């Protein structure tokens, strides 16, 4: 009885090895065993990938799976199915759950849920501070032993600079990054959208760009001071990009991410108070989008991550001030990257895929994000020629709060494979 999965005739694209050619990939016992033209080995399963692109399984280092606490919005099960549909094989879930992931038992709970119900690899991020209150450090060492992949108080910035300094110092012995949600809440205050002409026209309180920039400036200073690794979540403004670029040039160990939605929508698009456009940080101006794209080109921003933030219809049917911040992103991310980054010639396809695979893997220090012989076979296959309509009822996420409903997007994920097993297959 032959064994193994043969992916035949696809365009195999692996940023880590700079491979881009039409060839076959043979997988056996969970690992990639051979990458070559016209592999002639016996197999039990065959995928005809002709006219498709075979890439490493995507890695999203910023998602909210809402479990425990808000299982009405998303669960590890539903969120991981959404991830698989989007071509993601590894996701890092943020700890702003209820209770927050600030205890080793909760880290283990996530692993257990993911193992029993999840369909993709779920890596928990634990909090920087106890209960995300910004007052005392979490037990970071024990959280790492339990399996935490990084630390973040996502949703809150650690306002106490001394505490943030200690956190950055402490994680040096753990070799895990701190992910900072940079927002000075005294500046963002009651704001619900980008401060500027469109907040003026809408009569909505604005969130100034400086709320992010002030926070980034401090965190960069502390990263320099401590010589520790800092990762900046969802960077959204032009000046943030300039600050990070300068910091990188002076040797500060900083990495950064941008979301697909911040690349696709500007505050000009907030015209009818659609609460699916309410997101934090808010959609910024066109000039910010330009610089964010430029920052991908010069590697100032290393990673594209979704900040997938599910909310129920009931929550999003509230008014613009009451409705919660956040949009879902897992199922539209690859297509948006193709549309905004590849089609608009910001990056080559190879470079763009790197921002979704090997780059986050390196920041997280995980053995993922590559198609390489003897490495775990996490692989995504998509059809670049197929476009699709974003429809509410087709989301596998439990929520449908996407600003892209009704958009026609390029590139459709056809197969998502983890350890040689197909975990998602698109419907014909």
């Amino acid at each position, binding site marked *: 009885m032959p064994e193994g999965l043969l992916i035949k005739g696809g365009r195999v694209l692996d940023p880590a090895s700079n491979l881009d050619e039409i060839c076959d990939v043979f997988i056996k016992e969970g690992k990639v065993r051979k990458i070559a033209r016209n592999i002639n080995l016996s197999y039990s399963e065959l995928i005809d990938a002709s006219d498709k692109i075979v890439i490493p399984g995507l890695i999203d280092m910023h998602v909210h799976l809402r479990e425990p606490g808000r299982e009405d919005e998303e669960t590890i099960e539903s969120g991981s199915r959404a991830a698989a549909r989007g071509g993601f094989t590894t996701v890092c879930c943020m700890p702003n759950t209820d209770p927050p992931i600030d205890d080793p038992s909760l880290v283990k709970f996530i692993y257990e849920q993911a193992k029993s119900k999840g369909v993709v690899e779920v890596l928990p991020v634990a909090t920087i501070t106890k209960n995300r209150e910004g007052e005392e450090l979490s037990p970071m060492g024990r959280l790492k032993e339990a399996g935490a992949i990084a630390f973040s108080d996502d949703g809150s910035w650690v306002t106490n600079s001394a505490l943030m300094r200690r956190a950055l110092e402490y994680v040096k012995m753990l070799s895990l990054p701190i992910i900072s949600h940079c927002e000075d809440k005294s500046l963002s205050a009651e704001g619900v959208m980008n*401060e*500027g*002409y469109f*907040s*003026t*026209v*809408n*009569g*909505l309180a*604005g969130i100034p760009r400086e709320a992010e920039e002030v926070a980034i400036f401090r965190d960069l200073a502390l990263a320099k001071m401590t010589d520790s690794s800092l990762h900046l979540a969802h960077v959204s403004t032009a000046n943030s990009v300039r600050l990070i670029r300068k910091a990188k040039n002076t040797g500060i160990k900083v990495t950064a991410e941008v979301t697909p939605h911040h690349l696709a929508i500007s505050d000009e698009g907030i015209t*009818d*108070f659609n609460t699916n456009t309410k997101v934090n940080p808010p959609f910024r101006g066109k000039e910010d989008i330009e610089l964010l794209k430029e920052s991908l080109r010069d590697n100032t921003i290393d990673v594209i991550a979704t900040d997938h933030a599910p909310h129920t219809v*009931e929550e999003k*049917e*509230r*008014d*613009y*001030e*009451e409705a919660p911040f956040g949009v879902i992103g897992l199922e539209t991310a690859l297509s948006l990257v193709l549309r905004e980054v590849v089609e608009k010639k910001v990056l080559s396809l190879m470079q763009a895929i790197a921002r979704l695979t090997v780059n986050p893997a390196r920041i997280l220090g995980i053995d993922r994000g590559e198609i390489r012989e003897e490495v775990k076979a996490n692989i995504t296959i998509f059809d670049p020629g197929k476009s699709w309509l974003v429809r509410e009822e087709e989301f596998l996420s439990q929520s449908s709060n996407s600003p892209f409903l009704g958009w026609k997007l390029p590139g459709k994920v056809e197969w998502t494979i983890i350890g040689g097993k197909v975990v998602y297959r698109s419907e014909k």
Partner: protein
Amino acid sequence: MNFNRKDLLGIESLTKEEILFILETAKSFREVLDRPIKKVPTLRGKTVVNLFFESSTRTRMSFELAEKRLSADILNFSASTSSSTKGETLLDTARNILAMKVDCFVLRHSTPGTPHLLAKKLPVSIINAGDGAHEHPTQALLDLYTIREKKGKIEGLKIAIVGDIAHSRVARSNIWGMCKLGAKVRVCGPPTLIPPLVEKMGVEVFYSLEDALTGVDIVMMLRIQKERQNKGFLPSNSEYIDFFSLNEEKLNLAQPDVLVMHPGPVNRGIELPARIADGEKSIILDQVTNGVAVRMAVLYLLLAKR
């Protein structure tokens, strides 16, 4: 022309022609208000719900009177009697009332965009009676009506809007309307109360009341909310009065036939002294009278059809 809209959500989305059509229609209703019987049977059998989530005496009374003069049935729903405190959302509340078969909601709410939310989700007409700092379209229409009535035109007039522009829906709606009709609009207030990039709406920004008033045909004073000083926008109300309160000396910088407007209610002695509010240059009470006619026109244009 046909006024083919389901809702009146703001002035921003109206064309110049639509604004003028509403103002022309309002003239006929203004005449009805001078009849011995100030009531016409036009909206007999229609039910209008005044859904007020923010306290308002004037606007609600003006709408109520307009509805009554058109013979509509009226349902009043205000925040104090509402279930909003019990966790029912705006949309739930409106859907429940709609189930009783009503034809129109007049909505006043503290959050921008709430009328748009109802307009999108409900098949009946929505009239925005003020949504947060966003728009107050009927107020702007009655202001435009009053200016046209007194000055004969709007095009070419120099108009100064003074006060808390940042938090004012009246300012925003008027800026859209006045600019569309060809006025030259100035806004004036302390920089903390001027919203970012407001000049892109087509206005000129002044921090000095004297400069803003020089040569204007119309000055519109906005109501200042007393709580602004607590939120750090102003050092104190008395300092605001020193710099932005209207007086005769400052008014003398305007055209000799300048007219003074205020959306009400006036904080006498803060925005302007009683002498000016009640003086011959004031058209504040004309605004109130015309408000009923303009609201009748809006109700007619939205509801008197299939």
